């Protein structure tokens, strides 16, 4: 079998995942006349200008009324439209949880909840806007698909995949410019994890922006002679249990990384799969029961323990626990 080398994963540029959203929704609008883009007074933040220019009649400006946006989206979906709601992750989830639960999830509506500025990397606006609980909130809802793409290219492809996916979905992306390393035309397959590097000593799992951080950590570990199985998990629900268990069977220990609370997100999801099928020593790199604060994205990630150094230390620690 071809040994995938993590050093082959290189950044081809820097771009925000929300830019990928803007490109994706424009392309989706071209492909499907039922696609509707919505915004709650944040169209610029979600990069909707190109869509609005091309399809003004299919853009719905809600004003600052997120609860109404979720309900209107449910109504549009009932009539056969494919609405993509748009606002910050905080206002896409926690603020409107009951509207999503009742009018979208329980009602089985084909609404795509698209959420920018997730997590600490929102930066200077601070903890009021840095939601770190959204993945947990959304993955608890029955029937909800939860996707957290790793870069701008993948965000665009995830939007296109969601056009063809029938059912409620949550798409989480972010504000900062970030390394781009997936293929510009690589189709996104909902529910599939990607092995970025093949190894046997330890598994690393991550979602969203932390996947690049994980790649950086894996390169450091490889340079120390540790063989790392590097798995990107952009779909948190449904989880690619097969890929995760395959990796754990090979390595026997793991580190899970996400820009989210330790509770409720990918860490819990993978720990659950492991506990049930193959109990494995595991460490977690996530925000530990804390709110964020104002600051620059990279400074925040470092302060809250979400950088490559912390992943390397977590890996070294879990390797010692491995039998």
């Amino acid at each position, binding site marked *: 079998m071809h040994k995938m080398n993590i050093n082959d994963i290189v950044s081809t540029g820097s771009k925000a995942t929300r830019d990928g959203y803007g490109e994706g929704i424009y392309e989706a609008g071209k492909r499907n006349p039922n696609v509707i883009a919505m915004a709650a007074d944040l169209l610029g933040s979600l990069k909707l200008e190109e869509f609005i220019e091309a399809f003004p*009649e*299919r853009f*719905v400006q*809600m*004003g600052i*009324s997120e*609860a*109404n946006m*979720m*309900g*209107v*989206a*449910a*109504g*549009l*979906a*009932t*009539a*056969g*439209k494919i*609405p993509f709601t748009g606002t910050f992750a905080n206002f896409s989830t926690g603020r409107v949880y*009951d*509207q999503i*639960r*009742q*009018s979208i999830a*329980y*009602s*089985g*509506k084909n609404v795509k909840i698209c959420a920018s500025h997730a997590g600490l990397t929102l930066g200077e606006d601070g903890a009021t806007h840095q939601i770190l609980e959204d993945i947990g909130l959304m993955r608890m809802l029955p029937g909800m698909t939860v996707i957290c793409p790793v870069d701008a290219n993948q965000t665009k492809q995830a939007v296109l995949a969601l056009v063809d996916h029938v059912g409620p979905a949550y798409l989480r992306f972010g504000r900062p410019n970030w390394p781009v390393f997936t293929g510009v035309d690589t189709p996104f397959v909902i529910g599939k994890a990607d092995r970025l590097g093949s190894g046997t000593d330890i598994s690393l799992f991550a979602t969203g922006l932390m996947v690049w951080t994980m790649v950086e950590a894996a390169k450091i570990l490889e340079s120390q002679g540790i063989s790392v199985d590097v798995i990107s998990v952009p779909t948190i629900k449904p989880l690619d249990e097969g890929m995760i268990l395959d990796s754990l069977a090979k390595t026997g220990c793991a580190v899970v990384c996400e820009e989210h609370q330790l509770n409720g997100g990918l860490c819990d999801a993978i720990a659950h799969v492991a506990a049930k099928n193959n109990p494995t020593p595991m460490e977690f790199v996530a925000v530990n029961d804390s709110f964020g604060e104002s600051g620059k994205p990279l400074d925040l990630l470092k302060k809250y323990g979400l950088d490559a150094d912390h992943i390397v230390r977590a890996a070294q620690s879990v390797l010692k626990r491995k039998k």
Partner: protein
Amino acid sequence: MKEKITDIGELKRIATQVRRDILRMVHYVSSGHPGGSLSCTELLTALYFRVMDQSDDFDMTAKNQDAFFMSNGHISPVLYSVLARRGYFHLDELSSFRKLNSRLQGHPTTHEGLPGIRVSTGSLGQGLSVGVGMALAKKMDRDSGFVFVSTGDGELDEGQIWEAALFAPHHKLDNLIVIVDWNGQQIDGPNDKILNLGDLEGKWRSFGWRVVVTDGNDMESIVRALEEGKTHRGTEIPTVILMRTVMGQGVDFMMGTNAWHGKAPNKEQLERGLAQLEETLGDYVYDENYQSPQHKHA
């Protein structure tokens, strides 16, 4: 399309039978919401048997037909009775109301696949937004249908209602008709004491709506208000009908009080209530063990 009943007397006879269904449904499971169901009986009868254009087979998307969203989902008994009597599902299924493995959940839902239901409601304040969304879609599609949404008056306490109320006139949704069940009561007491709605007409008007006040328990008045509401396409202004009603209408000991908002009559009370309501179309046959063959768990 379903045939419409034009005779007001016939509509009143249907409404009387629907009231019997409501009392019997909530009695047999000792739960549910008769008060608001009884205040909205004329409304739902008028909508489903006379006013709304409805295809013979239920179409979730409501293409080129009218759609109704019941934002005040707790008054599910009146909706289920009217849907069953309009042929959306078998009348016998009313027996399964609020029971295990039923499509007739305590609050209406799409989740169990009941024909006639387009969204799950009951968490108050949400159904209006959904109706607004469908009205917006119909505008985009130049669709001929209207969207009707009912809300409770207590439900107007919810902030989301006013988000939707701001949105609909901005988007010129003259294909949207909202009906407020203005019975003056909510669970904890009269609206005036719980959270005063103040000048309700003035509030809606200032949000940009055409406001109609009518007697919602008078069949002729509510039919006229609803049909008149359908003549305003092209005005670019949505309509709200503030429907003066009596909670518990039609059953003397239930009328005008919040006591029967969410309480079921016992056997003796049921008999007293039924004695005041003529069996016009024939009661449904109550079968304690009825299971819908269409229920996914069945």
